[in-house]
């Protein structure tokens, strides 16, 4: 087993699945790069973050398909291709671009199976990049996972590290439903042990990253690392936090969260999106509807504020939920 970055893990999952199944194709802007360029080479980008680098060389431009800047056509094409026999992996470069292609996801991909009485399936993956941290400002730093999670018919995956990224992406590609696979842009350099061979991580199974009996901390994607930092910090005071990474928000592993809350009676949720109708609210609602008698203290939601993402680093740092805020929330629920 070798150490690999999150980027490499995703690349490897794509490579192995494309080698295994000729129906897997990649569609997106500059997923190869260089089409129509004067240098006459492809793979000039391999995705704007280099995630699909090398794949066009292995599988050719008919399977690593560069497109014009037309996201509705990109995503819709993936949906229609999935309905008719391919297993496309479409890339929405930044999740913030959702607004120019949302119909093809929420009214088409998510609904065809139900509307057609179970007679269609849409085995596609939409990979996209989420999150703040690179000062990319309001239109390139959102997470938007609550919007996807709200939509029945979509599955939503948010890997927090390289190991999960590979296993969840292979699962996503082999899954017969439309899967939104959200990669956090601050995680591409994250390194973990990642097996060379293909493996799958089932959806709806949370990862208990840290065992603990005093307080339950639920976090996804990059926030898992914030939660862990907070857990380490309170550990110095002898507080044992249980850190749970649901890994997928739809389906959500309610049982693992509820079992933990049954044990700890205390729940802190860390979520990078703004708070209203958010995943943090969703999990808080889960607790108060299904684990009310277990709760010993108010649930705490540590989220971004109800604002767009600011550009200036001094503000962006404040926007992103931080370990200090989580630490304080943990202390509050313990004192309560």
């Amino acid at each position, binding site marked *: 087993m070798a150490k690999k970055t999150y980027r490499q893990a995703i690349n490897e999952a794509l490579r192995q699945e494309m080698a295994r199944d000729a129906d897997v194709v990649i569609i997106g802007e500059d997923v190869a790069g260089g089409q129509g360029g004067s240098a006459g080479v492809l793979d000039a980008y391999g995705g704007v973050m280099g995630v699909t680098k090398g794949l066009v060389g292995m599988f050719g431009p008919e399977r690593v398909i560069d497109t014009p800047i037309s996201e509705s056509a990109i995503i819709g094409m993936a949906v229609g291709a999935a309905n008719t026999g391919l297993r496309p992996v479409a890339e929405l470069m930044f999740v913030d671009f959702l607004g120019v292609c949302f119909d093809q996801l929420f009214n088409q991909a998510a609904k065809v199976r139900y509307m057609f009485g179970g007679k269609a399936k849409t085995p596609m993956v939409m990979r996209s990049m989420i999150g703040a941290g690179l000062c990319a400002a309001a239109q390139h730093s959102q997470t938007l996972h609550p919007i996807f999670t709200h939509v029945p*018919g979509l599955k939503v995956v948010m890997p927090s590290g390289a190991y999960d990224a590979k296993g969840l992406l292979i699962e996503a590609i082999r899954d017969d439903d439309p899967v939104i696979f959200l990669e956090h842009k601050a995680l591409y350099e994250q390194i973990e042990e990642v097996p060379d061979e293909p493996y799958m991580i089932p959806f709806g199974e949370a990862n208990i990253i840290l065992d603990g009996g005093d307080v339950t901390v639920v976090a996804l994607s990059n926030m898992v690392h914030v939660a862990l930092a907070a857990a380490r910090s309170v550990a110095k005071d002898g507080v044992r936090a249980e850190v749970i990474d649901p890994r997928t928000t739809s389906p959500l592993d309610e049982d693992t969260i509820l079992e933990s809350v049954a044990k700890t009676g205390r729940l802190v949720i860390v979520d990078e999106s703004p708070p209203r109708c958010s995943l943090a609210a969703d999990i808080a609602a889960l607790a108060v509807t299904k684990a009310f008698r277990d709760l010993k203290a108010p649930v705490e939601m540590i989220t971004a504020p109800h604002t767009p993402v600011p550009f200036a680093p001094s503000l962006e740092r404040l926007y992103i939920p931080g370990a200090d805020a989580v630490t304080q929330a943990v202390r509050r629920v313990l004192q309560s």
Partner: protein
Amino acid sequence: MQLSRDDLKEAYRRMRTIRAFEERVKIAFESGQIPGFVHLYVGQEAAAVGVCLHLSDADAIGSTHRGHGHCIAKGCDIAGMMLEIFGRQGGLCGGKGGSMHIADLAKGMLGANAIVGGNPPLVIGAALTAKTKRTGAVAVSFLGDGASNQGTTFEAMNMAVVLKLPVVFVIENNGYGEGTGVSYAVGAHDIAARAAAFGMPAHKVDGTDLFAVHEAAGDAVRAAREGRGPSTLELHCPRFHGHFLGDPQAYRSAEELQTVRQHDPLSLFRIKVTESRLLDSHQLDAIDAEIEAMIDRAAAAAASAPFPSPSDLIKDVYVSY
């Protein structure tokens, strides 16, 4: 491409089925048997049929809110369609889709679509499958003049040209998008020319003339099948009825409504084939009677079929969850 006598009978059979189906749907809707919104295809029969005669089940089409005609032309089961529109068990989509969401993927019918401009991106996806798997299939996007102004349509056209996809965009210009005339909504007043500027052959054709549609569609489908990329047909075929059932059509003059009826694709077809003695009236009348009976049976069956059962509500959201 010549149409044999059998082809002609088949063409007429499909057009007549559409007409009879829609007239029955109208009656059923007006008597309160059909819930929701219904958009009739009457007047446009030659468009769907003229195109679909070139297609097999392996070829795909994408359709619109005005989709019954496309379904029938593509070979969807009539009884299943009627059940679906009535919202009953046994409907093509189990009663969960309704008029605006009939689909039958086994027949290459990718679905009616209640989002104007919703299908072109999906249809180029079906074309991508054909191209990638080298199946020789083609994909056809049926859309309206109104839908021709939707950004998704333009994107799909450009993408189809860039990737040289085996697709045909069939724009049924019936003069209106709801209550707004095409002469207002299409700034350039020329839908085909706009499509041509995306880099593909595009032709205007009389969409009430089965023969003209059939010929133009033959060329476009052949080009797609032979790997020569996409094309567009703009078919002129005014609708007889309102936008949806219940539309008083205040935006159309009495004269227009009269003229429209003079371009009835079924009458025009009948005159052509009988005058040229390719088919005779008896043959056509026999088809009419046969279809009438079939539609009767379908409507009666639909009216008495059970509604979906409560357990269907949460079924088939996902393959697995």
